[in-house]
Structures are given as C-alpha cells and as structure tokens.
C-alpha cells in the first residue's frame, strides 16, 4: 500500500516538476512559439513537452500499467469501504486529461476504459450478492446508494466527464440486467408492494427504474397484470355474494380505483404511461361482466334515493363524480342508458328522489359525457312531472266547481308521455275497486276534454294508495297469556300506505272476511308473479307490517291458502308504510328481454350510421366503411365487424346500398 502511495506521489511530483519546467522553457522560447510555430503549423513548445512526457515517462515500460493498476486498486479499496488518498488519484486523473492535449483519449485509454470495465465486473458480482438477500426494497436502496457513491466519486476525484459513463455502468449492471427479477421478486416485488400498500417502496422502485430504458415498461406491466387480476376477481360471478349485490359490486370497484389512483399519484408521480395502463385495465375488466351497466345505474340510483345512509351532500357528489369515471370505461353505454331511464322513472314515480336538483345535477354530468341525445328524453320525464302538478291544480278547481268530492277519494294523477318513459310491452291488467276507479274516470273525462285526440291508459303496476284501516282485534300481549283484564284499547285506526295492487287486494276484504289466493286472483286479475310478491309483503313480512294473515302459516303461497285481515295488527306508528318485496336488479328473464331490446336498437343505430356515412360519401370501400361506423358508434357501444357486415347486407337487400360492378368490395349509395 505504501509503495502505491509512493508511486503516485513520485509520479505526481515528476509531473509537477515537468509542468513547472515546461512553463519556464515555454517562456524562454516564447518568440519561437508565437512566430515559427504559427507559421509552420507545428506543435507549440508546451504541447511538445506534454507529448514527450506522455511518451517517455507515462507510457514507459511498466509505468503505464502500474499507474492503471494502482488507480484501479485504489478505487476498489474505496468501494470496499477503505479510506484512500483521493487527492493522489485526482492529480493523476487530471494529469491524464491534460496529457491528452486537445482530447481525452489518454485519460480514456489509460484509465477510464479499464476503470469502467472493472466496475462492470464488480457490480455484476455485487448484483448477485444484493439479489441474494431477496428483498426488492432493500436491493433498490442499495442500488441507489451505490449510484450516489459512484457519482460523487467521479465528480470529486475522477474526471467529471466520467460521471455519466460510470452511472451508466451501474445502471446497466444493477438495474437493466435484473429488471424483471426485481419487479417480480416474490414476497417483496411490485405485487407484494401493491398488496401491502407500500407506497414509498413503490416510489423508490419507480424512480430507480425510470433511469433505464424499459424499466418503467417492466414495472407497469407487472402493475397491470396485478390490477387486472384484482379487477377480474371483483367482477367474475362466483359464489361470492358481492357480485350479486350491485351496490357492493360498484363500491368495490370504486375502492380499487381509489387505491390505484393513490399509487398513481404517490408512487408513480402521475406518470402518463401508468395512468393509461390503469385506465385500460379498468376498461378491460369492467366490461367482462355484462351486468356492469345495470349495476352502475343501480348504484347511482341508490345514491339518489331518499335516505342515503350516512353521506353528506358533498360526499354524495364526490361519489357520483367517481362513478362517472367508471362510466367512461363502459363499452355498452347504450345499455346503461336504458337502465338509467328505468331507474329514474321509478324514482320519480315512487317519489323516492332526494331532490330534483341532485337528479338534474347527475343528468348534466351524463350530458357532459354523452351529449344531448342521451339526456333529452330524461329531461322529458321531468317536464311531465311538472306538467302533472299543474294539471292536478286545475283538476282540483274543476271538481270544486262541480261540487263533487270524488266519494272521498283524494286523487293524484301523473300523466306520462309515452315516448319519454320506459315502455312496457303492454299495460298489465288489474281490476280497480269501484270508488277509486270512478274517481279516475272523472279525471279522465276532465283531461280528455282539455286534450282531445290523446289516449290515457292507467298503469296499475305503478302508483300508490293511502288507505284508512280499522283493526278490531285486541292487542296481542307478548309473553304471558294472562287473562288479566287490560283496558281494551278498542278498535285501532291506522293509515296504511300501499301500492296500487295491494290496494286492490285489501279492499276486497271490505266485502268478505276470508279469501283464498285463487279468489283474490280472480277478483283482482293481477298477474301471478306480482300478486305473489304483493301478498308476501302484506302477509309474510315483519309483524309490524303484517296486515293480513294466511292459513296455513307457511312461507309458500298456494292457490288454496286463505287470507284474512290481521285484526291483531299493531304498530307504534299511525302511518304505516308497507315495504314491497323488491329485488335489486332484474331477474334473468327480464335481463334477457332488455338485452333483446338493446340488440334491436343497435341494429337500427348501425343501419342509420351506415346510411348517414354512405349518403355523405357516396362511395366507400368495405373496410373503410366498417372503421367509420365503429368510430361513430363507439361512444355508445362497440359493434363487431361481423354485425356491421350483416347490416350492410340487409341494406343491400333493401336497395339502400349496392356493390359497384367493377369491385365488389366497394359500395355505392343508392339514391
């Protein structure tokens, strides 16, 4: 060691002496330098001196090799943690730089190249060692430390121009060659970090991998496959109850988005590439489950209904904005539109909306995303509600003037314009009891007198009724079956709020005490599925909801079972609302029907798009047409090329389009 030091010292001393001497010599020969050298374009005195030093001293015999080895050894020692004479190295490097005269070739050849080579070898070995510790975060920290160390070394006592090359070497050996290994390291790699919310570790890894080509690519791929796996698990139908519950389904997806947005911001520095990857992953798995559009609408429905549990107005607003982000990823936006319309109609008609303002707010969000076509019909629904209010005012005045009181029925009618509201195939049947029916007839006459040429059809599947009910039985005492003489409470009166169907059922009991299911069905003419649902909510619900009782007391409803009024009925509330047994979301047959309607609509939309495009362009090649059509429709849904082709064929058959005789792949518009 001391020998080395001495060597460098000695060399440095010689160098300094040389420089000093050369300065003197140069001064003496200044005239020659300025005149002869310039005129004859030869090297000047000082440079000549440098060259002599370089050739005769530095490159003399073993000096060159010895110098190289010394310097390399010293660097190696320092890397191992020992202290070395940095000044000596610095001098030597500077000397080499100067000796290159106008280039850095001497430095490069004598020192830098072997230095980089040795470093590469060193780091190669070190990488194995680091990897052996099997922890990605530790590895990363070590690499970062090494990079800093090498940069500092090069800046301080090698030549500054070596900084970048040496960092390049470190990056190559420690990062590049092991990118995949680090990213995919079990129990410590990217996936582990994502699972365990190791935001900082991810940030470190991001920073590190950003240094090298393909580093971020490797990382984003890993993130993407993990995200896809997580997302897929959330949307795949399985025994998992959550995929059946739309609210949880969507909430889980929102939570997942939140998690990854957090990573995007905190760990990935809002990197555009990562943002794109995350978006495309969401788009991928969201659309794997065909029920996503329906569920998304149900989720929004839940947030727009009265009694949204535990959320302030601002929180609801925030949730809805986040839901819109998911909406953007939907490929089948037309399916969503259909469901949204249905759910909105229910909210408006059953008076379940929190407020008109929040509804309109939501619609304007959708309008921003999808344009007016989407929302114009929805706005029509609101208009109907407002107009109905006005109509009812006029009606009230009308019957007052008439002096009638509709036999005590307080009637409220909402008139819905057919085009705006989701349609049923046909209005279901139902036999309305006399009193309300007559009241409605009076309204009908009044309305049609004002708007001749219109038709009014009652929709019994909607609507509600408030009934005055008197229960004559004594209160059922809990616990003791004593015969204590409790002061009889007398007949109890309640107002019960029921659906139209339920009203029809209950009013039958004004005429008869007991009715079998079959009889009820015959009298009311209500469809079986609905009838069973209504009877379940009247007779088989909670005790505080049980208006009717059934013999026998089982859960199933058979045609022969007998219903009667539950005279023992009690409730703390004067006004009792009977909850209907409502399934969240559609049943499978209903879903199929909706899907059919959507497919029908899509056929028309595709054909309209084809005709529109062909009318404008007159002639078009098949592939180009398919691309254009897809482009035009992609904000609503993604038509497959086969389906578009089928529509083109249909239009050819109906003579809207024709193939050109010269080229069957080109279509023309037939005026």
């Amino acid at each position, binding site marked *: 060691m001391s020998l080395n030091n001495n060597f460098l010292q000695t060399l440095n001393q010689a160098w300094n002496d040389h420089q000093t001497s050369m300065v003197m010599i140069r001064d003496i020969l200044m005239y020659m330098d300025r005149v002869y050298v310039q005129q004859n374009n030869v090297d000047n005195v000082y440079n000549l001196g440098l060259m002599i030093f370089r050739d005769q001293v530095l490159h003399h015999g073993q000096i060159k090799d010895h110098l190289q080895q010394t310097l390399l050894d010293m660097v190696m020692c320092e890397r191992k943690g020992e202290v070395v004479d940095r000044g000596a190295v610095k001098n030597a490097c500077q000397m080499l730089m100067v000796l290159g005269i106008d280039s850095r070739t001497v430095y490069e050849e004598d020192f830098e190249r072997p230095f980089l080579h040795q470093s590469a070898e060193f780091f190669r070995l070190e990488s194995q060692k680091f990897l052996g510790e099997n922890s990605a975060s530790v590895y990363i920290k070590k690499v970062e430390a090494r990079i800093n160390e090498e940069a500092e070394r090069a800046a301080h006592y090698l030549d500054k121009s070596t900084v970048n090359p040496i960092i390049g070497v470190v990056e190559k050996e420690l990062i590049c060659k092991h990118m995949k290994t680090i990213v995919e390291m079990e129990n410590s790699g990217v996936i582990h970090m994502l699972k365990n919310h190791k935001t900082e570790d991810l940030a470190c890894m991001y920073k590190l991998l950003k240094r090298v080509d393909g580093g971020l690519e490797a990382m984003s791929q890993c993130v993407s496959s993990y995200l896809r796996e997580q997302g897929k698990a959330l949307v795949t139908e399985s025994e998992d109850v959550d995929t059946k519950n739309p609210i949880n389904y969507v909430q889980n997806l929102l939570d997942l988005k939140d998690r990854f947005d957090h990573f995007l911001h905190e760990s990935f520095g809002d990197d555009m590439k990562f943002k794109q990857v995350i978006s495309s992953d969401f788009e991928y798995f969201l659309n794997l489950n065909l029920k996503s559009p329906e569920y998304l609408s149900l989720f929004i429905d839940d947030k727009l209904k009265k009694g949204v549990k535990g959320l302030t107005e601002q929180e609801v607003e925030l949730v809805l904005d986040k839901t819109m982000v998911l909406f953007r990823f939907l490929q089948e936006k037309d399916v969503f539109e259909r469901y949204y319309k249905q759910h909105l109609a229910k909210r408006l008609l059953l008076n379940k909306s929190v407020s008109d303002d929040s509804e309109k707010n939501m619609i304007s969000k959708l309008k921003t995303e999808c344009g007016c076509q989407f929302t114009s019909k929805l706005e029509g629904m609101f208009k109907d509600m407002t107009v109905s209010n006005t109509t009812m005012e006029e009606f009230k005045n009308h019957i007052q003037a008439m002096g009638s009181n509709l036999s005590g029925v307080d009637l409220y009618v909402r008139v819905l314009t057919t085009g705006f509201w989701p349609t049923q195939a046909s209005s279901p049947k139902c036999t309305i009891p006399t009193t309300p029916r007559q009241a409605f007839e009076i309204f009908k006459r009044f309305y049609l007198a004002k708007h001749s040429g219109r038709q009014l059809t009652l929709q019994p599947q909607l609507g509600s009724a408030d009934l005055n009910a008197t229960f004559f039985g004594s209160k059922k005492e809990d616990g003791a079956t004593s015969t204590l003489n409790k002061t009889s409470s007398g007949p109890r009166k309640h107002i019960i709020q029921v659906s139209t169907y339920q009203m029809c059922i209950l009013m039958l009991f004004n005429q008869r005490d007991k009715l079998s299911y079959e009889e009820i069905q015959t009298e009311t003419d209500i469809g079986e599925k609905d009838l069973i649902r209504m009877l379940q909510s009247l007779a088989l619900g909670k005790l505080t909801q049980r208006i009717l009782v059934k013999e026998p007391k089982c859960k199933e409803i058979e045609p022969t079972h007998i219903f009667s009024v539950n005279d023992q009925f009690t409730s703390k509330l004067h006004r009792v609302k009977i909850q209907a047994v409502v399934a969240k979301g559609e049943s499978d047959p209903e879903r199929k029907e909706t899907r059919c309607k959507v497919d029908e609509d899509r056929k028309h939309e595709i054909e309209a798009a084809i005709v529109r495009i062909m009318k404008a362009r007159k002639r078009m090649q*098949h*592939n180009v047409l398919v691309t254009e059509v897809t482009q035009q429709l992609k904000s609503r849904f993604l038509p497959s090329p*086969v389906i578009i*082709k*089928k529509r083109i*064929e249909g239009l*050819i*058959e109906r003579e809207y389009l024709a*193939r050109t005789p010269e080229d*069957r*792949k080109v279509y023309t518009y037939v005026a």
Partner: protein
Amino acid sequence: MPRRRRVSANDDSTRACSKRARTTVVSSRKSSKLASHHSPLSAFSSKQCITWFHEYTNADEDVIGPEGMEKFCEDIGVEPENIVMLVLAWKLDAKQMGFFTLPEWLKGFSEILCDSVEKVQGKLEYLRSILNDPVQFKSIYRYAFDFARDKDQRSMDIDTAKAMLTLLLGRQWVLYSCFHQFLEQSKYRVINKDQWCNILEFSRTILPDLSNYDVDGAWPVILDEFVDWLKTRQQLHIEVAQM
C-alpha cells in the same frame, strides 16, 4: 347444302320429333305464303313461330304453362331440368320459371332464328356453348336468380337455391359439394340476390384450399361462415388422419 341431322338427347324422341316436324312442315306449306321448306335452312317466319307457340298453350291463352312446357321439352328432346332449358329461358328473357309468354317466345326465338322444333334442336349445341363464355355465363347465372325465385319474395328459398346451384355450379366448382353440405346443415332458409351473385364470384376467385380467402374481402356473412365451417372440417380431417 345437305340436310344435316342433329343429334338430340334421346334418339327415340328424335324420331317422334321429326314426325311432328314433318307434320308441321306439311301444314305450314299449306298456310304460309312464303316459300318455306322448313328444313333447318329455311328462313325464319314470325307467323310460323306464333303458330308453333300455340301448339303448347291452352285455348286462347297467350302463355305456355307447366303442361305446355313439358310437352315442349319432350318435343325438342331435352329434360326440363337440363341446363340448356335455362339458357333458352335466358335467351327468351322469360320472367317466370315454367312459363313462356308470347312476347318472350317471339323475341327469343327470332334472335336465334327458330320457328320449329327442328330448328331449335339445331341450336341446342350453340346454346350449350354459351355457357363456356364467362361473361355470358355470369349473365345467365344472375338471370337465374330472378327467374327461379318466387315472385312474392325478394329472396329465393333454400331448396330452389340448392337445385339451381347444383345445376349451374355443380360440375365446374370444386367446392360445390362442400358448399351444398354446408347449406344443408346451416340455418339459412333463403338466399338473397347479393349472396347469390357473390357465390359465383367466390367460386371463381377463391382457391379450393381457401389460401387466398381474405377475411376483409367484404364477402357476405354466409360465405365467411362457409369458410369457417370448411376450415373446421378440414382441420378435423387432418387430426383424424394423424391419429
């Protein structure tokens, strides 16, 4: 020029035909004012043609129906399903299979200068040869669609289509029997004009091994499905062969 005897499909019927021809010759000699020997070389006479037409009609009708058509075929010695009949119909530009109207008859036969059975027999080779010309064949093929379909519908029902395709493409398209099988197992009940025309194009441009079939070729979906079906079958055959 010597009188040339034309070979017809059925030798027996030839004798029967020539008998009738002679009869016709005799009667027309009496009726026509022009010197017509009614050898194959005699000049064409519209009047004669019209008279001949009425041999196949009922009473005063101006249209030959299925019965008359049968008799006509017998006379000229050609089966009704023979492709030559289709070519003839095309020449006449007949609107409906099984029927010839007087204007059609007159127009068509004056074009080929036939006013008798013998003359027609003389033209049969010529008519058949028309099929060898690709351009004319295409015209006949396309004509066949409108000719054979039920005039109430826009499309041709699948059974008629299969029969017509067998007639037209059965012998010259290598893949025809496959296509026929494909149609049998498919759910298609009708063939429309676009599909019909493209079948011919397909048979003419696509190689039997389907190597030059392009998915973006704007072929009607029925042909895309045919290719898929065929490829699956070919794949199965390969797999079986390798077992």
